């Protein structure tokens, strides 16, 4: 768990054209770039187009190389910063998430004492989704093409 906290971590959304779907390009992230990944969601459409939401961690430099490699192999990549959501009904404004948020996207407003979520600052690291005691922070894995 520790290396995840310390290392670079990003969630990316990949779309594979049918000719790439069958090849093990994603596994090569580990083999060639020493990155670890965690598949958060994967789908293959009837027309053999694949999509995958991947949490990649490792050194920042390797991350960029790895992403470059995927692009060379015809995979489309979308960052998923906009895919972290807060359920406003559920959030109790306790503040616990502010302990782990590395970008200050989650911050306590000292005046109102409400916890503000600034989506623009969010790097989609996913820490808050683990830490929030009422699971108000979620990673939305919906395919936003439709």
């Amino acid at each position: 768990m520790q290396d995840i906290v310390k290392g670079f971590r990003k969630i990316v959304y990949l779309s594979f054209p049918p000719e790439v779907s069958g090849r093990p390009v994603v596994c090569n992230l580990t083999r060639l770039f020493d990155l670890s990944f965690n598949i958060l969601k994967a789908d293959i459409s009837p027309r053999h187009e694949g999509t995958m939401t991947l949490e990649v961690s490792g050194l920042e430099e390797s991350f960029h190389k790895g992403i470059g490699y995927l692009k060379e192999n015809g995979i489309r990549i979308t960052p998923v910063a906009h895919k972290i959501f807060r359920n406003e009904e559920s959030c109790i404004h306790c503040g616990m998430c502010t302990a782990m948020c590395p970008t200050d996207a989650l911050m306590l407003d000292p005046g109102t004492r409400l916890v503000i979520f600034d989506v623009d600052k969010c790097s989609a690291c996913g820490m808050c989704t683990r830490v929030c005691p009422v699971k108000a922070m979620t990673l939305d894995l919906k395919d936003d093409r439709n």
Partner: protein
Amino acid sequence: MGQHQVNKTIQEINERIRKGKAVVVNAQEMIEIVRRQGKVAAAREVDVVTTGTFSPMCSSGLLFNIGQQPPVMKVSKLWLNNVPCYSGIAAVDAYLGCTEPSEDDPLNKVHPGRFVYGGGHVMEDLLRGKAVHLRAEAYGTDCYPRRELDKDITLADLPSAVMLNPRNCYQNYNCAVNLTSRTIYTYMGPLKSNCSNANFATAGQISPLFNDPFLKTIGLGTRIFLGGGIGYVIGAGTQHVSKPQRNERGLPENPSGTLMLKGDFKQMDARYVRGQSLLGYGVSLAVGVGIPIPMLNEEMAHFTGVCDADITMPVKDYGYDYPNGISRQLTRVTFEELRSGEITVNGKKTSTVPLTSYAMSLEVADELKKWIERGEFMLTEKVEDIPSF
């Protein structure tokens, strides 16, 4: 009580509540009133100060009865949504503790565990009107032959359901830091290495037991707001410390007073009863508790005038000291400093992280204030003191 310039009784205050004439303020508003007018005038003007807190309170649970369905049963083991309940009481009574994880939870096998579901969540689900799966086993007797029960139930199906909390409303607490070189996951939330964050609980100046530090008006029989319904204080909570070290305002300097509470669960509202998953630690329950403090005299006005700057808390290391039972205090900080977003520990700036929702705590105090203003909630006289010196 000595001589006071203002002397009111609970009966008089209730009379004013009944007539819709009582002056009720929340504990935050009271600070300004006492500051501006002084304690004597404040005690004359105000009748009731409402306090509130909304925080994880691990020592909470639900005492319930499932009723009989012939052939009748003397339950020996019982689960609600796969969360084990204690059923070593009577035939169909059981107690669900809020920190009980679901039986198949992976716990901390992969650290830090997520603790997705447990007793606290069952309680929240019941209040949301959701169906909960009940499973029970028995060994069977001549008078109670049934050996198994498997069905879905809702809160409405339970003949009785009482929230029964052995320890709530801690009067003061520790502020937690971590001096080790790895992130740890505690009941005080996640603590990053090398003292990078300091986590603190309680609602500070509006928290019930900071507003009546000697429990002069709170005792067995005090009617309160509990989880959105009406509850009662039924005595000292477990681990209650009656003779803590106090500052010049009488405020305890360490975790000290606690309350045991009960209330009719069926009246409660899921908004104020929330299951919690504490990463790497376990399951818990955030409960909203509001306690009305009657302004019997200027002494109570003085106490309820407490502000965050008056409250101090010990900062403790949860990385090594706490797990090893070492009660070393690294430093003391005021609640006001904690609220500012940054404190200094061992010469290092550390960002502070609250764990208690001040916004929700204030909402609890305001809800209770509304009830009293509408004449729906009468104050009670305590029947027995909770020792506090």
